[in-house]
């Protein structure tokens, strides 16, 4: 999604440099080359020079601690996660925490550090959708048992109840596994997990009881 920057602002279609007179205007300006109307608003950060990082200092005496990753560089920080000594180059400041690149990456991969999350899978939406499918499949299982007769009713209801077991089981697994894990950066309520657990448990129970009833009823009769 990100693209290489031009130094000045350019028209997004024809790449012609936008003159300053066209910037920060309330209305739309016309690009004379591609005849597209557009608007550009500039903020002071455009003129701010890039911030340069500090270079790591060389180790001058044997008494000083050295960086874990660079033996010849002086240690200036300690990783808050793993405790390794880090030089200026290797230390990363994030939300008032100093960390090394390895801990940062492992935190991002494990999904424990929400502030590093760049994508997420909505386990609550998945579980809720699966529970809705479970309700539908259980309903079909019950209807098949009601309208068919004899062995075809039992077989049909069992097949549909089997599908319902798959989807319902997946929904319950999703709820159990992801209920206490961060699933989104934005605030998400727990209602989908609760509804998924309730719907899939009830519908799955109903379908299984119905199949059991069909078999037992046949045996009793």
């Amino acid at each position: 999604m990100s693209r290489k920057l031009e130094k000045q602002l350019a028209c997004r279609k024809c790449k012609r440099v936008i003159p300053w007179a066209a910037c920060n205007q309330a209305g739309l300006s016309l690009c004379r080359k591609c005849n597209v109307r557009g608007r550009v608003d500039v903020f002071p950060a455009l003129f701010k020079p890039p911030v340069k990082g500090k270079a790591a200092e060389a180790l001058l005496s044997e008494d000083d601690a050295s960086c874990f990753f660079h033996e010849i560089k002086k240690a200036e920080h300690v990783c808050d996660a793993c405790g390794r000594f880090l030089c200026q180059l290797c230390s990363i400041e994030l939300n008032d925490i100093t960390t090394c690149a390895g801990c940062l990456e492992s935190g991002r991969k494990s999904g424990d550090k929400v502030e590093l999350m760049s994508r997420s899978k909505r386990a609550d939406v998945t579980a809720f959708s699966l529970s809705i499918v479970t309700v539908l499949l259980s309903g079909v299982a019950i209807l098949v048992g009601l309208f068919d007769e004899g062995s075809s009713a039992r077989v049909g209801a069992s097949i549909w109840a089997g599908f319902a077991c798959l989807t319902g089981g997946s929904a319950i697994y999703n709820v159990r596994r992801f209920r206490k894990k961060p699933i989104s950066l934005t605030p998400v309520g727990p209602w989908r997990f609760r509804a998924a657990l309730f719907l899939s448990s009830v519908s799955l129970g109903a379908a299984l009881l119905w199949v059991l009833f069909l078999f037992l009823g046949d045996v009793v009769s």
Partner: protein
Amino acid sequence: MSEGAPIYQKTRFSGRDSGLRSRLWRSEDHLLLVNSSGYAERYYRFYLADLQAVYMRRTTQGVWINLAAGVVGGVMLLSGLGFLSEGITGGFIGFVIAAVVFFAVMGVNMVTGPTIDCYIRTTSGITRIGAIDRLKKGAKFVEALHEWIDPIQGELPEDAESLYDALGGRPTPKAAAAKPTVPPIEPVSPPEMPTMTDFVVPPVPVEPTDAP
């Protein structure tokens, strides 16, 4: 959530980007763009201190939506009238309801205004903001951005124009004014060319030797 994780507030800016739902959230120091398919989310963070510019470009998407909805709605209406002339009331009602749906889409599209593509430029790149898809929404977005960014970045510098020109590698008017002017070169008469006589080596006096 882990400690230190930012708390996001929902903004009123949401839209669609290539079939995905797109919404902007705001934290204390940055904006979060969430592109969501429903089952998966992708996040983009824009720090308010790094935000350099906002581009908006009008697109023809709205015109095409109007055209398509209008044509389909018109065809539905004509079909309904055809059923009515045949005395089939059920067909007439069905087609008129369908036509009303398409005309409603057209109406909503017209009320929400022209469609745009919106981009945000930061120090690390240019990113499309799918949440801003209408011109009116874009104007409100820029207003809101000024409200959020101005306390952090301050006002534009007075010499913004010359700084902007300098970004393109052109000399700024200020720099040009400050450049020391070179005094005009006065024509000088060429130096006299040396003549051959200047190069004549004077005769070396030969000392008389005491010949035996």
